């Protein structure tokens, strides 16, 4: 059994899965691993596949810690800085839970202390951070 298969089984056992019999060989976790040297289109395809899987499988969860532990979310973090423009675009469009991944990849926190209590300002701080670094968002 591959590592990612084991990860998926552990996640579903721990957090529950609506479809325990799903053939995980067809899940998003089968996406080949790419590097930052890959073509942007390929990286975007991979990101979209993982992000859609993550949203579908964790959307009903009420706890952020559970959402972040999902293997697809962890694989997005593993894509490194190449994932940042895709994450920022998705953050702008969906206002989703991307702060954990952004902080893990960027190793920065651009959110001013005085804005930390306002989710809208937190999102804007990250988008502005991306614009300043030239990301196409």
């Amino acid at each position: 059994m591959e590592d990612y298969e084991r990860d998926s089984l552990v996640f579903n056992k721990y957090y529950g899965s609506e479809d325990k019999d799903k053939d995980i060989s067809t899940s998003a976790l089968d996406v080949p691993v790419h590097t930052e040297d890959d073509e942007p289109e390929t990286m975007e395809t991979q990101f979209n596949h993982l992000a859609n899987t993550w949203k579908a499988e964790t959307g009903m969860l009420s706890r952020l810690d559970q959402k972040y532990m999902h293997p697809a979310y962890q694989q997005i973090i593993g894509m490194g800085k190449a994932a940042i423009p895709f994450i920022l675009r998705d953050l702008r469009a969906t206002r989703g839970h991307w702060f954990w991944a952004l902080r893990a990849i960027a190793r920065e926190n651009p959110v001013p202390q005085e804005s930390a209590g306002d989710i809208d300002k937190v999102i804007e701080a990250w988008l502005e951070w991306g614009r300043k670094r030239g990301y196409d968002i």
Partner: protein
Amino acid sequence: MGKKKRVRYLSPERERAFPSLSRSNYEATSDETTKYNCIAYVAGDESQWWQPYIGDRPTYWPDGAIKGYSIEALVSAFRALGYTMCSGGELEPGFEKIALYVNANGEWAHAARQQADGSWLSKLGDWEDICHTTVEAVECDVYGKASRYMKRPIRKARSEKQRVGRHESQ
């Protein structure tokens, strides 16, 4: 002639996550949003996500409540709002009740709030708010079962926004 109210539902894909949910026992009452979760919704706060701070974004957890994911932690959070333990979810005049759901690992996973007519309100993670006729309607692998009930006098239930603070400090 007035317009007939259009009843909204979850997508069929989302409905499949809840084996006991059917279009005869629930309706959706909001659009989906990532701004707040079920714990915030039950507490009457639709402005922020309620969870012990984990370091990435603003979240709120009541002062003095146990931090963590044990059911005791969630009970302590609602004790801070004036709720006390009770034996079940039957309608009790003068009281507002909540149901706390515990997953197979003994951790809190969901909460619902009873309305005056005995129906229940839930926010489904990032998905929509729904109104369901029974507390069991949203029991599932992910949320587990409703295993704790709490209540408080209805007169205390209003204006929770005046009582809760903002996010936990970093």
